C-alpha cells in the first residue's frame, strides 16, 4: 500500500493533505479496467497533471483526452458514469483507494497532495461491471421495489390531503429522505454480497438503503398504508434480520443518513409485526 493509499482515510487527514498540496504537480491514477461484462480486468496507470481544485472526474476527463498509460502505450479512454457532479445523484460512485465514495466530490488535493502520489480507482465491488468504472446498479433499485419504497397515491378518486406532520417528525424524515441511492452503504457492507443471478436477488440481503427507505415511507402519513407489506418483505429471507451489525453503512454514507438507527427501528417494527401476526394473523 503506497503512502497515498494509506491516508485519505479520515477527514482530519484529508484536511491536512489539502494544506500541504503542491501546485503544478502530476499524480498517478491506477485504474482497474474491464472491457465489458464477463471480460477479464487489468490495471493501467496514467500520469495526470493536477489543476487547481481538480477532482477525480476532471482527471478522468483529462485521461479521456489523453489515453496514454505511464508506459507510453496508447489505450482506450476510461469509461465512467456520472450525472450531477455535485454529490446528489450517486451515479459516479466508485471505489477510491479501496473505499467507496462519489468521485465527483473526491478532491485530488485531499488524496494525493505530493508529486507522484498515487490514487487507485476501481468499479464498485457489489455490482456487475458494464465497462471500466461503470457498473449496473439495477439490483439497488430492484431492492427499493421489494419494500415498496413509495407512497400509494394512484387511485380512481382523490384521496384528499394527508395527515398533519409535526416539525420534529418532519426533521427525522428529512434526514432519511436525503438518500440518493448511490450504493455506498451496500459496497462497504460485509453482509451485502455480489449476486450475479437475478433470480436470487429477492432472497439475498436487501441492504441498508432499502431498510432505511422502508422506514421513511412507513413514517409517511399515506405511505404507512403499505407498512404491513414492507414488514412482510423485511421479515423474509434477505430482510432486515440478515444484517450483521458491522455498521459500515452509516460510516460511509455520504449524506450522513442514520442508517443503523433505521435498521434498529425496522428491527423493532418487524418484531412487533411478527408478534401481531402470531396472535392475530390470518395465515
Amino acid at each position, binding site marked *: 500500500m503506497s503512502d497515498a493509499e494509506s491516508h485519505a482515510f479520515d477527514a482530519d487527514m484529508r484536511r491536512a493533505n489539502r494544506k500541504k498540496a503542491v501546485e503544478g504537480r502530476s499524480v498517478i491514477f491506477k485504474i482497474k479496467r474491464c472491457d465489458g461484462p464477463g471480460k477479464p480486468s487489468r490495471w493501467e496507470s496514467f500520469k495526470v497533471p493536477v489543476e487547481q481544485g481538480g477532482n477525480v472526474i476532471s482527471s478522468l476527463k483529462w485521461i479521456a483526452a489523453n489515453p496514454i498509460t505511464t508506459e507510453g502505450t496508447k489505450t482506450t479512454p476510461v469509461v465512467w458514469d456520472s450525472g450531477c457532479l455535485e454529490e446528489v445523484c450517486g451515479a459516479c460512485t466508485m471505489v477510491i483507494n479501496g473505499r467507496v465514495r462519489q468521485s465527483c466530490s473526491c478532491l485530488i488535493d485531499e488524496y494525493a497532495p505530493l508529486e507522484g502520489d498515487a490514487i487507485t480507482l476501481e468499479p464498485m465491488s457489489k455490482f456487475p461491471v458494464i465497462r471500466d468504472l461503470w457498473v449496473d446498479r439495477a439490483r439497488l433499485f430492484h431492492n427499493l421495489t421489494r419494500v415498496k419504497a413509495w407512497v400509494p397515491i394512484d387511485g380512481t378518486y382523490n384521496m384528499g390531503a394527508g395527515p398533519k406532520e409535526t416539525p420534529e417528525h418532519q426533521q427525522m424524515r428529512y434526514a432519511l429522505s436525503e438518500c440518493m441511492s448511490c450504493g455506498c452503504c451496500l459496497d462497504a457492507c460485509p453482509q451485502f454480497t455480489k449476486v450475479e443471478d437475478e433470480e436470487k436477488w429477492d432472497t439475498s440481503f436487501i441492504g441498508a438503503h432499502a431498510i432505511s427507505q422502508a422506514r421513511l415511507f412507513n413514517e409517511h402519513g399515506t405511505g404507512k398504508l403499505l407498512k404491513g407489506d414492507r414488514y412482510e418483505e423485511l421479515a423474509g429471507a434477505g430482510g432486515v434480520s440478515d444484517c450483521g*451489525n458491522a455498521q459500515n453503512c452509516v*460510516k460511509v454514507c455520504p449524506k450522513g443518513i442514520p442508517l443503523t438507527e433505521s435498521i434498529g427501528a425496522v428491527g423493532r417494527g418487524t418484531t412487533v409485526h411478527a408478534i401481531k401476526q402470531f396472535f392475530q394473523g390470518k395465515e
Partner: protein
Amino acid sequence: MQKHHFLLRRLHSLTGIVPVGVFLIMHLTTNSTIAWGGLNSRAHGDGWIDRSIATFQHEVEFINNMPLLLLIEITLWASIGFHSILGVVYAMSGRPNNADYKYGGNARYTLQRLTGYFGIFFIFYHVATLRWGWDWLPGAAKWSHEHAASTLAHALQGSTEQFTTTGLFVSIFYFIGVSALVFHFANGLWTAAITWGLTISRKAQQRWGFACAGLGAVLMIMAWVSVVGFATLDYEQARGVEEAMKLDSLPIDSGSHTETAAVEQTDIDG
C-alpha cells in the same frame, strides 16, 4: 429455511442469550469460586485455597443434585447445537472487508464470527475431554465431579505431579477459548438489542454498548481467574480437601457412625 426465515433468525438470537448466555454466566460464576470461594474461609477456620477448593466442590455437587438435570443438559445441548449450526450458516453468508474498512464495528463483526467458529471447536474439546473422557484427544484428562478441582488441575497442568508442556498448551487453549466465548456473548448481547429493535438511536446503542462491555469485562475477569486458578492449583492439596469432604458427607445412619467419625478425626489430625 426460507419460510421460517424470521423465526429461525430470532431463535438464533434468543438461544444465544437464553439459555446459552445465561448458562455461561452461571458456569463462569461456579468456576471462578476457585479464586474467590475462600471469601468465607475465616468463618470455617481453614485456609483461603482450601476453602476455595471446598466451595467449588460444593457448587459442583449442588449442580449434580439438581432436579431434572438431564432435561437441563438436553436443553443446553440442543440450544448450543442450534445456535452453532445456524451461526455457521449465517457467518458464511458474509464477506469480511476489514482491510479496507477499518472501523471498530466492522472489526467486531468479523471477531464475532471468528470467536463463534473457535468457540464451537473449544466447547467440543472441552466437553469431549472433561466430560466424555475422549482420552485420544491431545492433553485429555477425564474430569470427575467427585474430585472437581483436582481433576481440573490435572487437565490444565498436563499431569498430577507438575506443570508440563502439554499443560501449557491446554491452559493457553482454555484461556483463548473462554476469552473468545465471553467476547462472543457480550458482543452478541449488544447486536441482539439492535436486531430485536430494543436500541434504536445512536445514543441508545452506545449506552447499551457500555453496559455490554461492562458485563463482558466482569465475565472476562471471572473466566481468566478460573483458568489461572486451576492451572496453578496444587493437585495434592485439592485432592486432600476433596477426600476430607467425601468423608464428611458419608450418611450418618450407615451403621458405622463411630467408625466414620474416627476416620474423619484421623484424617484431619493427619
